[in-house]
């Protein structure tokens, strides 16, 4: 290989590097956008879990309590009826919370 050929190759290499940098920058923009969307979804999920689940629970317990009151059920049975779904939901909530991470 002559010096001239090497110089031509260096010029080509520099051009190639520019293309490569352009590709990297474009891909990274897309990757960062994906990460931002992921972060927003996580926050939305957290807010949903913190406010949505308790709200649903309150409504559920209220309706259940009203229904049981009307049916004149024994008090221990009434507590069991309310406690069972509450415990199930609490366990599911705790499991979800354990997996939850905000660091993006």
């Amino acid at each position, binding site marked *: 290989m002559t010096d001239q050929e090497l110089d031509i190759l260096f010029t080509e*290499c520099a051009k190639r590097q520019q293309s490569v940098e352009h*590709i990297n920058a474009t891909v*990274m923009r897309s990757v960062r956008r994906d990460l931002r969307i992921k972060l927003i979804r996580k926050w939305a999920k957290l807010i949903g879990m913190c406010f949505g689940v308790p709200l649903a629970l309150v409504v559920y317990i209220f309706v259940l309590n009203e229904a049981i009151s009307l049916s004149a059920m024994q008090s221990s049975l009434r507590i069991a009826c309310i406690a069972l779904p509450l415990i199930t939901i609490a366990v599911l909530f705790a499991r979800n919370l354990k997996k939850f991470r905000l660091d993006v």
Partner: protein
Amino acid sequence: MASRPTDIELIRGVLLDSNARAFETLMKRYTSQVYGAALRLMKDEDNAQEVTQMAFIQAYRQLESWRGENFGAWVTIIVNHIALRHLEKEKRRQTDPLDDNTDAPDETYDEQKEQRLQSLETAIAELPETDRQIIQWHYYEDIPLQTIALRLGQTENNIKVRIFRIRERLKNKCNYD
């Protein structure tokens, strides 16, 4: 000096910590290789750039399906699929009489040139860190020899000699390849 993280470490960083920098490092290692593969099929720089970008974005989104093979080879397979799909679409478009195709790719691709470029890039990558840096500054960033000498705390003549030696080394390596 911190050791260079392996591909697996970087991918773990992306998957477990959503580390964008880890993906950037990983990508920088293989962009040239993947772009070369894309160029080989597309024979057009703009289209090759586009499919390479698509391949890396797809690789990022499907990183969980990576099975531990060579990352560069994995993305190259993805880029080949995308490029072939792109070419098929292009072919269909060209045979469609209703479609007036005006942006046909310019066939400027030269296999031999591509091979030489790849071998020079490999040879540069194998140079010691400082030599690689000198090449980067001098040939890619057009930084004057005097500035390079100042940065490295050497004389301009020393840098000239060093560049001469690096060039000889690269020429030998490329001839050998």
